[in-house]
């Protein structure tokens, strides 16, 4: 076990992938000499060379489209999109090419591309630097979408993503980059929890609280706070956003009878809606209350002085838990 930051854990995972497979190639803006604006790729170009850790021109569609060509040639490109809000110029290549080429060619052409995207807010940046665009991609068939919440998963899942023959969007909660944790670098990828599985982080009996990425830590803090009031929250780190591991969520809800899901992304058409609908379909008669969503609002990402109003925090999550439990809450007295 080694203690390291979240960013360093991703770096270590990338390094391992570069070492293990000569076809792995990193591409992105400022990832080489600079080591990335968040230093996630620090030192990798120096150790693996400019042909394997490639500083690209500033053209996101160009990066994604050339990654497709490299994949055609048998490479495993790992693309860094510098910030969440910069991914849209690459949207067409991701949605129309990366996601669909395997289907289009009836499996002849594999697209083992990993797209690393620092996402989420809470770092005091201007717009385009704090977005949560995951639902655009979970709605796109052919992609796998994952996010991680701690250094160990960051280290393990980045390697699982790179070794996957399917394209994977790997969302990195940038406000957690400096969080530290223990990482076992000798982890066996084959026996580690598969990347498309959720993980129950804390067992509980009263409410199931589903979170992912940056809000997992917030959710755990909320569970700790709630336990002081005698409320037992089961916290699930979703990890995989497409596909969602409904079996794990369903098993929990069948036990607790109540579901709260939280994410930074806006509410409408978001992951929370999908989870609420699917769980309702699967175990409606085990639900004691309607599923509750605690999410960002349907607004463009706001200026940073007000971002704490947009981002679900511990208190808003607990307010949602109170709603699920039928306890007094901010919406008491309102229908629904």
């Amino acid at each position, binding site marked *: 076990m080694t203690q390291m930051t979240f960013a360093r854990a991703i770096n270590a995972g990338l390094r391992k992938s570069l070492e293990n497979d000569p076809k792995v*190639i990193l591409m992105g803006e400022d990832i080489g000499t600079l080591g990335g604006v968040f230093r996630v790729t620090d030192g990798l170009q120096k150790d693996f060379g400019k*042909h394997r850790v490639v500083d*690209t*021109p500033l*053209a996101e*569609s*160009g990066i*994604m*489209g*050339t*990654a*497709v*060509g*490299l*994949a*055609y*040639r*048998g*490479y495993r*490109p790992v693309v860094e999109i510098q910030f969440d809000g910069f991914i849209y*110029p690459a949207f*067409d*290549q991701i949605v*129309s*090419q990366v996601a*669909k080429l*395997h*289907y*289009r*060619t*009836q*499996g*002849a*052409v*594999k697209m083992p591309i990993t797209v690393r995207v620092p996402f989420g807010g809470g770092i005091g940046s201007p717009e385009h630097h704090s977005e949560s665009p995951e639902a655009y991609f979970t709605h796109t*068939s*052919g992609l*796998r979408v994952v996010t991680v919440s701690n250094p160990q998963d960051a280290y393990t899942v980045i390697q699982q993503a790179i070794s*996957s*023959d*399917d394209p994977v969007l790997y969302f990195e909660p940038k406000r957690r980059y400096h969080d530290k944790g223990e990482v076992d670098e000798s982890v066996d990828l084959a026996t580690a929890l598969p990347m*498309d599985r959720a993980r129950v982080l804390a067992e509980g009996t009263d409410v199931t609280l589903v979170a992912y990425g940056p809000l997992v830590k917030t959710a755990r803090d909320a569970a700790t706070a709630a336990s002081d009031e005698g409320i037992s929250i089961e916290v699930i780190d979703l990890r995989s956003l*497409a*596909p*969602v*591991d*409904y*079996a794990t969520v369903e098993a929990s809800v069948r036990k607790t009878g109540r579901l709260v899901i939280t994410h930074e992304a806006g509410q409408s058409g978001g992951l929370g809606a999908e989870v609420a609908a699917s769980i309702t*379909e*699967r175990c409606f008669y085990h639900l004691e209350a309607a599923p509750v969503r605690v999410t960002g609002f349907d607004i463009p990402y706001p200026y940073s002085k007000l971002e704490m109003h947009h981002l679900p925090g511990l208190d808003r999550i607990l307010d949602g838990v109170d709603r699920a439990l039928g306890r007094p809450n901010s919406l008491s007295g309102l229908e629904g």
Partner: protein
Amino acid sequence: MSTDEAGHGGTTPGGPGNSAGIHGAGRYLIQLVTPAGERISHPEFDPWVQDITDERLCSLYEDMAVVRRIDVEATALQRQGELALWPPLLGQEASQVGAGRALRDDDFVFSSYRENGVAYCRGVDLTDIIRVWRGNASAGWDPYTINMATPQIIIGAQTLHATGYAMGIQNDGADSVAVTFFGDGATSEGDLNEAMVFAASFQAPVVFFCQNNHWAISEPVRLQSHIQLADRATGFGIPSLRVDGNDVLAVMAATRVALDRARNGGGPTFIEAVTYRMGPHTTADDPTRYRDANELEDWAAKDPIDRVRSLLDRKGLLTEELQQHVKDRADAVAREMRNGCTSMPDPEPLDIFKHVYSSPNSWLDRQQDHYSRYLASFGDPAGATTQEGAR
């Protein structure tokens, strides 16, 4: 940009500013055979087609005639309701055969949907050409069997794939080349412009082959560009050639120049093949709504197949025997394609779920399970099962 450039004016080699046909604005068209079929000498490009013997010239003629026959047959199949759609290449045979026959087997092609002539040169199975257009598949063939990606429908997207593939060739230390085909409309797309940035920055072994057929559905090329398309490449630091796209020898020579540069570490080249789309954009299009009949007539006079026939005639090679051979071959190919089309088995309903992912996916597996139960319910009056997966 006038549309009669490929036949008139400015085509004399050796004139001012003609050195290499590379660089410089308002350049002349590289031409080795005039529309009347006269072989004109060109000290710079002649060496690149020196190996084209009479026999090989006849073979190029055959290729072009067969490609046209494929196109005409596919159009007929569409009119007869056997294909949903077909994008004709009528008039572009010299561009596609000249370029297609310049390639090595280990080169890799990334094309749009109109390059069926290139696909023929790559050795595609004829049934595979029409699989997509019959609605039986999203792509007709395994790209690795003929080293040609299946047709790209998003305009210009494939130019980036070619550039990335070329970067891979470079990393591998190989001397093959990625060649991308696109039209004049694609030159306005961001993807092509980004591809040229990447290709130039990394000096990737890629050839950008633009068939300027003068029309992007209903939009004339002057709407895409205020300058000659070949001149756009100059701004990216990419050498370019402007070639008579209805002259199969000139196209082959230009393509070989570009391939040779790429193989020898000289990086990308942009070729503008000036040709003309004599048919509609697709069988669903009606060009009489936007195109002057006189323009079509002008270009018919520069027909690429007539041109090579005239050349063969001048050389005394257009024998009855050759013509009969070419006709027989074209008929046989058309027959094979038609038979392949009408005898193609329909896909199975659950095929829609195949190959979305390369490994199991819980969302999709559930949907497939439910849909197969739904389908089965029609064959089973007892109704759907109530097993676990049906919830």
